[in-house]
Structures are given as structure tokens and as C-alpha cells.
């Protein structure tokens, strides 16, 4: 499993993703600078890391999506390569149209950095196959603009197509208003594209993938990807590609 981590100007979780993929999972990973195009064939997984690309000026992710590397990301997505956008990476995927909807400022207008509980919405994806559907996991969030918005039809579609990967929930898995840290529609914390090869999520699995950090719930996400790519996952092969 070889990963590319795209470095946008202002990315700041690129090193964290690199660390998890290479040190914790022991898999090869490379940084790709936003000014470079790359060949989708060279990588199995493309990570759009968190941070503040272009300072989040104008709108989070709005400027980054025009970078040359994103052209390659679009092509790779089309070819069914796995794309994982975390936090700012999710915002970029939305702006680029690879995922539906948009992000707004958190409803209390404050940046939120703390652990949240997530209910796994679907285990039927390359990213979540090691989780159980409905399983509750803990992950840190750290964002000021994680208030997911989409019109009702889109939300309905995401639900009916089983594309909501994670919901903000309480410790017991109840998807309540109180457990929603930012005002996201339907408590959405992460969604898949139609082909299920693109995942965008606000919480940071790379920040909770090691015991020393007190929580390794996020490691399963990266391991799911590995399982999938090595053909061992219970979900078999998705979509085209």
C-alpha cells in the first residue's frame, strides 16, 4: 500500500498522516507538493491532510482545489483510487466537487478541539471495513468550519445510499443534537462518494492511532484501507477500477 500525501500551502497535518502511514502502519508514503501533478498509477491511497490551506481565506478549501495536484486527484478518483480527505482535506474535496455539500462555520462560531464519539454509519467501504456498523469510536476533532451543509435531497440520498461513514454521536451511539459539536446536518462527520472510493471526514483518525496518545481507535481506519487493498477485507472490491 503506497500513499501520497498532498502538501498544500498551509497544510499542517501532512506530517501526522505521513507518520501514521509510514511509522505506525509501516507502509511506504510520499509527500506530493501541490504544484506537482502525479500519476494515479503510482499510488494506492491519496491523502488530503488537515490544516489551513491558503489560510482558509475566502472559504476553507476554496483556493486549494485549483492546484495542479488536484487535477491528478480528480483523475485518480475517477479511476477508483482511494482518496481520503481529513478535516481541511474534506473541505477541499467538497469544494472540488468530489463530495456533495459544503462546509460552514461551526454553529457557535468557535474552533472546537476535543474528542468526539462517532457512530460508524457504514462498514461497507474501503476505509471502514474493520469497524462494525453502529460501532462507537472516539476521535479528536479540531476545526472551526465543520458544520456540514447539503440540501435535503442530498442528505436523503447520502442516507439511502449508505454513504454516511460517521455520525457524531454520544458515548452510547445515540445520534443526538447534543452530541453534534458543530451543527452539521444530520450529525454528519464523514461521507463517501457514490463510488465509495472517496471518504471525507472532519475528525482526525491520524491523531488517535497510537496507544501512547491514549486512544488508538483511528488506527482501524488505516488498517481497513490496508486490508482492502490487500484483498483481505470482508467487502471485496468496490465499484469500477
Amino acid at each position, binding site marked *: 500500500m503506497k500513499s501520497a500525501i498532498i502538501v498544500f500551502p498551509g497544510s499542517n497535518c501532512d506530517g501526522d498522516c505521513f507518520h501514521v502511514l509510514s511509522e505506525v502502519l509501516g507502509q511506504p508514503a510520499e509527500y506530493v507538493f501541490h504544484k506537482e501533478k502525479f500519476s494515479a498509477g503510482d499510488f494506492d491511497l491519496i491523502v488530503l491532510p488537515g490544516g489551513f490551506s491558503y489560510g482558509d481565506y*475566502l*472559504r476553507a478549501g*476554496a*483556493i486549494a482545489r*485549483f492546484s495542479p495536484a488536484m487535477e491528478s486527484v480528480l483523475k485518480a478518483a475517477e479511476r477508483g483510487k482511494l482518496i481520503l480527505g481529513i478535516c481541511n482535506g474534506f473541505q477541499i474535496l*467538497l*469544494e472540488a466537487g468530489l463530495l*456533495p*455539500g*459544503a462546509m*460552514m*462555520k*461551526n*454553529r*457557535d*462560531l468557535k474552533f472546537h478541539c476535543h474528542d468526539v464519539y462517532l457512530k460508524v454509519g457504514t462498514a461497507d467501504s474501503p476505509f471502514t471495513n474493520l469497524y462494525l456498523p453502529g460501532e462507537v469510536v472516539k476521535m479528536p476533532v479540531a476545526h472551526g468550519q465543520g*458544520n456540514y*451543509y*447539503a440540501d435535503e435531497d442530498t442528505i436523503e440520498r447520502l442516507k439511502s445510499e449508505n454513504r454516511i461513514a460517521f455520525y457524531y454521536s454520544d458515548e452510547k451511539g445515540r445520534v443526538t443534537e447534543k452530541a453534534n459539536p458543530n*451543527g452539521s446536518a444530520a450529525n454528519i462527520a464523514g461521507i463517501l462518494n457514490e463510488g465509495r472510493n472517496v471518504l471525507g471526514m472532519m475528525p482526525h483518525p491520524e491523531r488517535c492511532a497510537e496507544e501512547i496518545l491514549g486512544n488508538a481507535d483511528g488506527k482501524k481506519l488505516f488498517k481497513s484501507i490496508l486490508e482492502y487493498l490487500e484483498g483481505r477485507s470482508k467487502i471485496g472490491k468496490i465499484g469500477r477500477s
Partner: protein
Amino acid sequence: MFKAKINVQFKEGVLDPQGAAIKGALNHLGFEAEDVRVGKMIEVKLKAASLEDARTKVRTMCEKLLANPVLEDYSFEVAEESL
């Protein structure tokens, strides 16, 4: 040189957290604000061949970058700037 004043606002029906907060604060200060919407006002000075050309350019800017069609509407005015 042309100068465009571009106004980007949330679509009708999108709940604007910043507007809601300001409304709360205004009412707390004793004003009777019924509705508050916060948008962006972006002023761009640009080169273009003509006013028409400038208008086309500004529209493209808005569609490509300045407004997010999922959430936002935009409107603008363009005027020629004398140096």
C-alpha cells in the same frame, strides 16, 4: 482599469451562524433586529478590454472561485476606474 464590487451571500434558507450571533448580540444591546445576514463584500480591481469584458470576467470569477454555489448567491457591480 475596472473596479468590481462583489457581494457574496448565503442563499435564502441557509442558516447563517454568524448572522444569528450578531442578531443575538444586537438584541442584547437593546436594538430590535429582526433579521441579520452576513455576507462578503469583495472589491476587485482588474484589467479588462471593456466594461463588457470586465463584467464577463467578474462573473467567471464568482462562478469559479468567489462564491460556492451550494451555499451562496452573488451579485456585483462593475465600473470603470479612471487613473
